[in-house]
């Protein structure tokens, strides 16, 4: 068994969106009761990430993939479960205790225009994390490091005194990658880093991310809805649906023989450039809301293979051989091959 850089066990993250006390009040059968509205964004998710690999988390909007990433980095305190970083438990740490891990774990966001401070120059943006994590570092060392990283991500170091708005979308994403690399992290979470980019620029950024991984031995967790990107860059893929992982498998296995009925439908919906009019598996109905989760398997209402058990019992993520895990009763029982 390979060692684990990140180990997430039974992670739960719920958001209470009930609002103020008055908004929680409701009238039921002539009595006033207090009701809470809870979004069950991430439910009982267990995942691990090997050092040096790229684990992609895919799923459609609202499936909890971004929440999972943020809870992992401690940006949201989890409501349950455990998170380990190199066998050290990191959930529930104080801000102070978390500091050394923050330098090891960095994040790249989707929209660099929103994640870069518009009133800081590129130089200031890039200096900030390294000075924060190494207060004793000398000024010239910082400058050298900024120039080195800028060169590495393909932004001319002499543009250091410019502001984010003076760059193109692709250049800005390079700068936010540079900021993540400044503190020499081991683990980078990239949340839809190329979704806002045009395809020719997207290729530039994906190449940059792959190069950085090779040079620095980075481990990535890649959050995206773009399955062709996933297929290209990841070693393993976790498919999420309504806050749960329904399948976790090495990329080649997943794309060649998807197990979970949802994965099958999802993959069949990708338009293929060279296969005109291929048939996709039509799902019935719509994604239920995470406020009112269906009982049993969260997918059973839309699943062509669901039976009585699926509507009662939550399937667990079962080992299906060589690193393939699927949460599906039909597969477990052999009803679905």
């Amino acid at each position, binding site marked *: 068994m390979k060692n684990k850089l990140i180990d997430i066990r039974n992670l739960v993250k719920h958001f209470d969106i009930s609002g103020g006390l008055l908004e929680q009040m409701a009238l039921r059968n002539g009595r006033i009761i207090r009701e809470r509205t809870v979004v069950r964004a991430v439910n009982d998710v267990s995942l691990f990430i090997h050092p040096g690999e790229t684990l992609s988390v895919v799923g459609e909007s609202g499936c909890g993939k971004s929440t999972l990433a943020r809870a992992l980095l401690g940006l949201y305190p989890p409501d349950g479960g455990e998170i380990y970083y190199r066998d050290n438990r990191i959930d529930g740490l104080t801000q102070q205790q978390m500091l050394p891990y923050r330098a090891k774990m960095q994040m790249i966001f989707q929209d660099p225009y929103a994640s870069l401070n518009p009133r800081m120059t590129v130089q200031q943006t890039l200096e900030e994390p390294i000075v924060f994590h190494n207060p004793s570092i000398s000024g010239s060392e910082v400058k050298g490091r900024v120039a080195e990283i800028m060169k590495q991500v393909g932004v001319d170091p002499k543009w250091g005194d410019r502001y984010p708005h003076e760059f*193109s979308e692709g250049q800005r994403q390079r700068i936010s990658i540079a900021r993540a690399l400044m503190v020499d992290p081991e683990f980078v979470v990239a949340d839809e880093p190329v979704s806002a980019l*045009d395809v020719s620029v997207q290729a530039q950024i*994906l190449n940059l991310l792959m190069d950085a991984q090779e040079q620095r031995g980075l481990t990535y967790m890649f959050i995206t809805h773009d399955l*062709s990107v996933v297929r290209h860059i990841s070693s393993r893929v976790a498919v999420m649906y309504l806050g749960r992982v329904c399948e976790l498998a090495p990329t080649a296995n997943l794309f060649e023989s998807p197990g979970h009925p949802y994965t099958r439908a999802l993959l069949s919906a990708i338009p293929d450039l*060279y296969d005109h009019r291929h048939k996709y598996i039509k799902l019935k109905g719509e994604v239920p809301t995470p406020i009112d989760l269906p009982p049993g398997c969260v997918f059973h209402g839309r699943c062509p293979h669901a039976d009585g058990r699926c509507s009662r019992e939550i399937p667990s993520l079962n080992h299906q051989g060589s690193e393939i895990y699927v949460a599906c009763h039909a597969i477990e029982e052999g009803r679905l091959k």
Partner: protein
Amino acid sequence: MDHLLEVKDLEVKFALRMGDLTAINGVSFTLDRSERLGLVGESGAGKSVTGFSIINLISKPGYISGGSVIFEGRDLTRLTNEGMRHIRGNLISMIFQDPMMTLNPVLTIGTQMVETLQAHMDISRKEAEDISLEKLRKVHIPSPEKRLQQYPHEFSGGMRQRIVVAIALLTDPALVIADEPTTALDVTIQAEIMELLLELCESEGTGLILITHDLAVVSQVTQKIAVMYAGKIVEAGQTEDIIDNPRHPYTQGLIKAIPDGRNPGARLNQIPGTMPSLIDIPPGCSFHPRCMIRGDICRHESPALKNIHGYRSMAACHMLDTAEKQAGANVTK
């Protein structure tokens, strides 16, 4: 032969204080009845502006500065606002990216559908509602009678876009222009909407102009593709020719930049640089600063869109012979 739509040397400018910027520079294409065309390109290529200018929806400071848009024999660029109103939303309708922005949030779906119909036809509310119900059924909205009374926020994103499709088809238009209709949607819903659009266009004989950045989506739906770059069409032809056998270096680069799952982990082909902004479109061929096979002529002479010897497609490139060798080299590799 009579085309449904013929766009000829279309030119759109934006009058700014610094002078006029040319957004569309001599775009020409034709569309026959019940034909489907994909206008493809990256942001800033001018594909949306082209779509808007067909129905004369360019707002100030933009204006159509040249060329013509002949639709069913009439030049739409010369029509008055009054005349245009009979065309827009009636004979030609448009589908936009974000259904939440298209639908009026304070009116029920029914009101919006009836309003559209009554604007173009002299019919009663009851008749209009009947047509609306029929169209909602066509886009597979369950229990349409009940849905007609509901507001846009009561629908999911995919359903909203299906309603927008139903509204676009209300008046049985001859042409639908869909501007990135699935970009804001998840991939399973995208597949659903695209299939629906294709199905309806085929069964009703509606022409379609699909504007998108996504070549894979276009390849599923259209018969023809026009690739745009910096306000011009750089390559045009049958869909399968463009996808399988791109001639222009930009199209070739664009297709190779898409991760297609055939070489996982390999470096993706990247086109250096970015699309030029309208303020400083390079002289000569506007793609030359990013082009790997540019020659001297590309720096000062703009190439025209012309037939390629031995191919069905048209491309605007001085170096087509080189591009050909390039493509050949890639096939053998």
